[in-house]
């Protein structure tokens, strides 16, 4: 880590402009590839959010719970309260953050396997409670969520508009997580993840940061969940099963958990492309996906981000470890 590195504003601006142009260009891909890009952006964001919790040392399998809360909040706000789309997005994400705060204070007292189990239980409780509530459409869910109004050139009646929205959310999450990782916040998370006792002996109140990480993770997961619910036009309890929580880990682990932004981006790209094209082999879908995962884990235990280091091994001396 190069702590003393000075960010030149020009470089950052250039990067933003280039990435913006790239994102704009994605909107002119064929329809199917736009769909892939949307799923890529969604799972990248969820994967990154999952990694934040991993940084403080916990393995969460409850991301589906926050996708669910986000999706349902947006659906309820727009259907029952005629709330504008943008407000619904923000309120849904805030709701998720609030739920994470309340739930996190309780469940983050558990560590390791116990946390893993209780995060799974949390997601299932959310899903089953919703499925039992008539107000929330019970097992049928809520449907007919209106298409949001156009925003300047972004039309939400087309895939292109949604693509831009999801890429925007991804960029927001990516920049936030990147800044966290580069700053003291990310360092403190790593300290807690590596050794909570040692961190405490230096005056770091680890519960505070564990809950903080959980809340931030829930905020972005909820934001994606809300946008995804409106994009699909319907939310139902069957949509938010354990498998959703699993995808978050798959993309993060495929990409490499050492890199909070690049890892999920790469992992999610591989995952979504395979996921889309494996519809042609319906019987062997899970088999091929599982084989892919095993191959990557076996040959690249540190994920796709380690390809360069492992096979090219051409890094200049002193290349910052966290970029790899």
């Amino acid at each position: 880590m190069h702590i003393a590195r000075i960010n030149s504003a020009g470089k950052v601006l250039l990067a933003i402009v280039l990435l913006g142009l790239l994102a704009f260009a994605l909107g002119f891909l064929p329809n199917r590839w736009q769909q892939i890009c949307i799923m890529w952006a969604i799972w990248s964001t969820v994967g990154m959010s999952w990694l934040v919790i991993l940084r403080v040392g916990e393995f969460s399998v409850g991301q589906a719970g926050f996708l669910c809360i986000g999706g349902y909040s947006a659906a309820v706000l727009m259907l029952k309260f005629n709330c504008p789309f943008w407000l619904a997005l923000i309120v849904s994400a805030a709701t998720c953050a609030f739920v994470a705060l309340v739930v996190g204070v309780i469940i983050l007292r558990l560590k390791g396997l116990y946390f893993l189990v209780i995060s799974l239980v949390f997601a299932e409780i959310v899903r089953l409670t919703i499925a039992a509530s008539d107000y929330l459409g019970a097992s049928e869910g809520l449907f007919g969520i209106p298409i949001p109004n156009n925003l300047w050139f972004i039309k939400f009646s087309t895939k292109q508009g949604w693509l831009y929205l999801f890429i925007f959310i991804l960029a927001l999450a990516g920049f936030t997580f990147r800044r966290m990782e580069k700053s003291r916040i990310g360092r403190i998370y790593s300290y807690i993840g590596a050794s909570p006792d040692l961190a405490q002996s230096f005056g770091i109140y680890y519960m505070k940061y564990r809950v903080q990480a959980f809340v931030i993770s829930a905020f972005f997961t909820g934001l994606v969940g809300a946008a995804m619910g409106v994009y699909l036009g319907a939310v139902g309890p069957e949509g938010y099963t354990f498998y959703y929580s699993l995808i978050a880990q798959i993309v993060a682990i495929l990409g490499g958990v050492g890199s909070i932004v690049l890892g999920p981006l790469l992992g999610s790209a591989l995952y979504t492309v395979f996921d889309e094209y494996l519809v042609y082999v319906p019987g062997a879908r899970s088999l091929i996906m599982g084989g892919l995962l095993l191959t990557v884990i076996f040959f690249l235990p540190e994920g796709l981000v380690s390809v360069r280091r492992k096979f090219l091994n051409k890094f200049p001396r002193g290349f910052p470890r966290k970029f790899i």
Partner: protein
Amino acid sequence: MALIEITNLGKSFGGNRAVDGIDIELQPGEIVGLVGPNGAGKSTIFNLITGFLRPNSGTIKFKGDNITGLRPDQIAKKGIGRTFQITLLFHGQTVLESMLAGHVREERTGFWQALLNTGAYRQERAQAFEKSVDTLQFMGLTEWKDTLVNVLPCGLQRFLGIAQVIMSPVEILLLDEPLTGLNEEEISMLLGKLKQLRSQGISILLIEHHMKAVMSFCDRIVVINFGQKIAEGTPERISTNPTVIEAYLGCKRGTRVS
């Protein structure tokens, strides 16, 4: 006023009284050794002082304030630094990165300032950076600063542990077997550093089995056995105390001291 005043400290694990009515006092600037056979309860006392365990009875006062039952981080913020018996490390971090952990409790900027990289945050980061370079220099770890902590030689990991604690001002250091795994040369080097720290006004409470070092280094020694204090005094008096000798070496039949 005593820097640390422990009265009637007790801690049981089930039916096992690990610490049983211990009184210890530590004056400012003092170096006190805490010795005793394995399992005597020395590390438990450290964990009680630093809040990692809650005592069943007794009080711990730091400069007159009752700190019994506070959380470890709150106690650390008061200026009580500690190291652990097993070498705890932040795996995957470089020496320099893990040094910065010791400075966190000094930093006042919050989450948003860190996230937005404000001027105040950058200034604090620069201070932390400077302080870690100085501290690494003091502990003789400068050339290792970009090494991952987990590949650092074992002895230097112990040095790093102490270096991290003194990143922020501390008034007392609780060192749990700091000399374990060090060779003679490293021991004399570390003791030299500790003496320097003491001359800066830091008191030290030390658990150690290396008797030669304890005898030459401590002002006062407290001997613990089966959770109880069996002797206390200057190194000369302790080394000739029959109860202590019995606790350490056992005794001949018929010569048991009452």
